[in-house]
């Protein structure tokens, strides 16, 4: 059984059907791309998968559990983490705290134990600190641990957001345009990072992207949507030569 199984996903905002009958199936540690022209409904799909929007119709099953109608924080618990198109970091907190917040649910000391600084507090905080440092080290950002997130260069902010998502220990990582605003060099570096994450953490990755070279380069499977409907599905090579895709992107 697939890790993420989406069937007949539809959302209507008043009279506008933003996404119509979207379907996708992602296996464990699969790298899948979701592409489409501006306004096609890619981010809307993401928002439904992560519980921000409630779909009008359809079913989403993640790791055997239904996620429709669940809150975003419950879906994180089940195992889906995401990043945002327009970076959403905790800007006025340090890089380390950004990651530590994502460890919140993996720690168990309660309010009283925290305030009284009982041994559980010290033990778990120490562990969180160490795991955060380990994770930042993977992204080559250990030296920024005490920097405020807003003071990081753009590329590093993107990386921090991915690191923060990974800290929730997801089974699937959803990246919303991770290469937006990056130069070709940074994009290439990002491609390597995404590949590395998938192999290192053995998780599935769903990627929304505009940058064709990025998507074609790393995705094993691609779904193309336009006006909320799936217009093509398949391997990168098949997508490249699909007349529907060419029409959607370049016009007739």
């Amino acid at each position, binding site marked *: 059984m697939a890790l993420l199984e989406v069937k007949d996903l539809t959302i209507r905002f008043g009279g506008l059907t933003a996404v119509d009958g979207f379907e996708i199936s992602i296996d464990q540690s699969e790298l899948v791309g979701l592409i489409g022209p501006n306004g096609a409904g890619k981010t809307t799909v993401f928002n439904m998968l992560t519980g921000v929007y409630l779909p009008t119709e359809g079913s989403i099953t993640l790791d055997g559990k239904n996620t429709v109608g669940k809150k975003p924080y419950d879906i994180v*618990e089940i195992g889906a983490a995401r990043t*945002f198109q327009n970076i*959403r970091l*905790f800007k006025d*907190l340090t890089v380390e705290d950004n990651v530590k917040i*994502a460890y919140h649910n993996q720690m168990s000391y309660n309010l009283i134990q925290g305030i009284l600084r009982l041994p559980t507090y010290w033990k778990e905080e120490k562990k969180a600190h160490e795991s955060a440092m380990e994770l930042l080290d993977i992204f080559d950002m250990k030296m920024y641990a005490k920097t405020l997130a807003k003071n990081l260069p753009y590329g590093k902010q993107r990386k921090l957001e991915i690191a923060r998502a990974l800290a929730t220990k997801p089974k699937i990582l959803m990246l919303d345009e991770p290469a937006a605003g990056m130069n070709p060099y940074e994009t290439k570096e990002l491609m390597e990072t995404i590949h590395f994450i998938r192999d290192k953490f053995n998780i599935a990755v769903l990627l929304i992207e505009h940058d064709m070279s990025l998507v074609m380069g790393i995705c094993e499977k691609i779904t193309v949507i336009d006006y909320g409907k799936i217009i093509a599905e398949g391997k990168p090579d098949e997508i490249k030569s699909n007349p529907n895709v060419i029409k959607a992107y370049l016009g007739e």
Partner: protein
Amino acid sequence: MNLNNKKSYIINIVAVTLLYIVLQVLMQNNIINRYYQGIIVFICINVIVASSLNLTLGFLGQLALGHAGFMAVGAYSSALLSIGMRGMELPVIMHLGVALLFGGIMSGVIGYLIGLPALRLRGDYLAIITLGFGEIIRVVINNIRFTGGAQGLTGIPRLANFTNAYWITVAVLAILFALIKSRHGRAIMSIREDEIAAEAVGIKTTQYKAIGFTISAFFAGIGGGLFAHYMAYLDPAIFNFMKSVEIVVIVVLGGMGSLTGTILAAGVLTSLPEVLRGFSEYRLLIYSFVLVVMMIFRPQGIFGTAEFSMDSLMHSPKAFLKEVKKEAGGDDDKGGNV
């Protein structure tokens, strides 16, 4: 607990105790007379109430405009219990402790009840609800019999003095500092920073908003209780809208998200009207002028979100000043689409 932590704990305990001893000695020798002693107790009360509001305003990032209402709940409920306990002949510290705790809990419960519906929504609903609550509570107290109504509540045992006010303030601040440096505190701050992102990393935002706001109301109640036991008389008119505004001003001036900033601002703003007594009718004018100047030149408050610590002062005062300076600059838009 590593060595660094231990060191900073010891430094803080020593500094707090030293300050207490110095003030106590000055009072014994009458260098600080009873008038100034009273101002110091009011500073303590304002520090408690304002730092509790800072938890909502600065750390949780929600606007609350009715903190005087929570003070009133705490003040009246602890005072009424205290009057009832008069016959029991308890030691002062126990009597005061029980009364304050009761005031805090009552205030916390009411805070939870009015906060929960408002905090489920995003936006400034809490401001409107707390604004209304502050007025309602004052009118209710004015019109029921057992609170003494508009004539005021008399006969409250005068149990608060400089010593216990000082240590209660220290305890409240220690709890708040410990809270914000725990996983719960980080969850609260993540809501201020970006609610959508907080949810996306697994923070139950409604729950943590309720926790933060309830704790905030709890300590406002403690502050109110302390006020009641120092004044020994309560009048509902004290807890009017201007009192709420005064507390908000302390928090904003000190820096939203900086407890040490709140302490400093509470000290300055509580003593300023007294210092300016010589200017008689120009007093309020100068007070307002200071606020306007402050907001023009340092809109993020004295400390911004930086915290002053004895530890960093001893190591490198320059680094701390740099931190404070770095705090300059406006806040970015936190709304927008996902």
